């Protein structure tokens, strides 16, 4: 194994640790922070089952976003395609992480390719709306462009690897499986792959400290996750006794 491989292998482990610990840390922090009062945005379900039923379309279809006007509909299209394709791509990548590859992942491969193509288009919509609308221009921060560009770059290097500078997939798989089995292997000999992989590490390391935590936040957001049941049960947080 060459020097670069060693460094990248090490970096991968450090990043994975940062991601997992950082993510769990936030999850625990949110759980430890109480909700002193019942503040669901009403009309809200009055039971836990009802909350689950409210949450599913929120997570799967960004339901609240659909309540908005034209700008939100455009955002919905871009955002929803982005998230779904992102998910499909992640699933498609599982073929590098598994051996033998389960049939269900193989079944995704075709969809995964379509996703790979729609993905940059969706991201383009998301990025363009940030500077073409005067309200978006005001609220957009550096880090908002940063994640979008980071993810676009990941997507584009991915497409490059697939269509132009084909890499030896056997090497890739060996490298990833090496990481997973703690028997580090040689980095595939491809600068594009190195960039693609490196950017993914950046994304993972950045995730827990950024707005990307909305992926977890939505599930514990009290206005959506609380049941509207003050008549049925007394709700008291420890500090507010």
């Amino acid at each position, binding site marked *: 194994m060459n020097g670069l491989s060693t460094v990248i292998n090490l970096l991968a482990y450090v990043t994975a640790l940062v991601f997992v610990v950082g993510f769990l840390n*936030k999850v625990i*922090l*949110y759980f430890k*922070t*109480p*909700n*002193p*009062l*019942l*503040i669901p*945005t*009403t*009309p*809200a*379900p*009055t039971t836990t089952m009802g909350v689950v039923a409210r949450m599913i379309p*929120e997570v799967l279809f*960004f339901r*609240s*976003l659909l*309540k*908005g*006007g034209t*700008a*939100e509909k455009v*955002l919905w299209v871009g*955002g929803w395609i982005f998230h779904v394709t992102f998910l499909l791509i992640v699933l498609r990548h599982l073929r590098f992480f598994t051996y033998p590859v389960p049939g269900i992942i193989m079944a995704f491969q075709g969809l995964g390719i379509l996703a790979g193509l729609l993905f940059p288009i969706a991201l383009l919509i998301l990025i363009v*709306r940030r500077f073409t*609308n*005067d*309200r*978006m*221009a*005001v*609220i*957009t*921060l*550096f*880090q*908002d462009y940063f994640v979008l560009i980071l993810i676009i770059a990941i997507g584009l290097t991915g497409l490059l690897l697939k269509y132009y500078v084909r890499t030896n997939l056997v090497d890739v798989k060996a490298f990833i499986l090496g990481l997973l089995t703690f028997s580090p292997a040689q980095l595939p000999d491809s600068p594009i792959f190195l960039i693609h992989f490196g950017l993914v590490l950046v994304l993972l390391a950045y995730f827990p*400290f*950024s*707005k990307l*935590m*909305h992926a977890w*936040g*939505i599930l*514990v*957001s*009290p*206005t*959506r996750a609380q049941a*509207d049941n*003050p*008549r049925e049960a*007394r*709700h*008291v947080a420890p*500090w*507010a006794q």
Partner: protein
Amino acid sequence: MADIKAPELTGEIITPKVTPGASKGIMPFKAKPELMEKVNFPAEKPSNWKELFLKKMEEILKKYRSVRVFLDECVRCGACTDKCHYFLSTGDPRNMPVHRQELMRSVYRKYFTTGGKLLGNLAGARELSDELLEEWLTYFYQCSECRRCSVFCPYGIDTAEITMAAREILDATGIGSKYNLEIINKAETIGNNLGMPGPALRNTLDFVEEEIEEKTGVPVKLPLDVEGADILLVTPSADFFAEPHVLSLEGYAKVFHQAGVNWTISSHASEGGNFGMFIGNYDHMKTINKRIWDAARDLKVKRVIAGECGHAWRVLYSFSNTLNGPFDFLDSQYRQPSHICEYTLDLIKKGAIKLDKAANDEFSVTFHDSCNVARASRMGETPGDQMTIPREIINACCNKFVDMADDTIGERTFCCGGGGGVLTDEMIDIRVKGAMPRMQALKRVKDSHDVNFFALICAICKAQFTKIFPIYGIEMEEVGGVHQLISNSIQLGAKEGV
């Protein structure tokens, strides 16, 4: 004040161009040191104010999951940007909910996140400064805590929670709103927001009794501090003072009279409203709310009923079980407070009160969903009944009712522009503007259905619209309460009982 101009009424709500600083300079009067101390806040901003500020902020981050999660999870998608009535009417970018939150989020980054500490400006982090305080005082008091933004946010981020936390931090730093704190002090020491002592209250109730008897010939009573009454009514003290508020008070009294129940008002808890909520202060909210439960216990009532008031109902319905529950001393059928609308509709359905719709024939009525009722509480059994119950009442006592446009009612209702502790004269400019979306929606039904009665269930809404209507060129007499319509149409005497 006379030179305040209202936006033109066209019936359209158009998203404005962003105009930085458009509503700069509109902010509440600061409370004087004596007042600050009376309500347990530092008298003045001390030289070490930054310490106090950050200490309070840290405490809130530990105590409120809402604030912590909301600060972390916003993706700046922009869905909320044109949903706030204050932005729609001023174009000031700080009145876009996400940008209002940004005033706190930027401080959060600077002092509570690694990225912000390291990258500073680049990461959108901002240091504490007098200028920032000024912006906080301005824009966290140009929010009526109406929660409209939270309906459209994909994560339900509720700017009202951020606003409340911000006001709590400002108070802890020695910067308070005179209007809000004066009211809190009066509610805690005298028992109501007006500062109306018991004898004045009795005198007022006597007067209302006379009025009803003069108008109807029926001796309807408004009992005060009656021990052993079945029902304790808690209503905003504005009902004892202002118009059209008092006309709804007459309505409640007639309903109780006709139902033949023993009811009472309490001089100890002669206020339904709770401004502790507006400033995000748990202790004040609890103290003010406790007066109600002390009164309910002392008077040994079986049931507590809330009069027409938006935020009062939020506190009573959503919070009071948490703050001062459990209420096991109440009748087991009525463990929780009810809303007067729930009570009245129930009587109507049972046939216990008779209504003469023709009595309201001069009115073409529309109904304004008060945001605290629509988006922060419930009535009845099913979610959403808080919208249908008042409408059912109106339809039971009026022949002509029409709703305003769908995207301006129900959970998407537009605030009156004066809620959340903004209802004070120095804020009149933003109050007039903030009412704009609601006024446009009203304009449309005025044009199409000749609406001339704007029915409300919130004391703040009533006061706000009475003030704002004439500025928009509409008669203030068109503002009224739902129970005012009941009062007009209820058939007294000819009692059938419950």
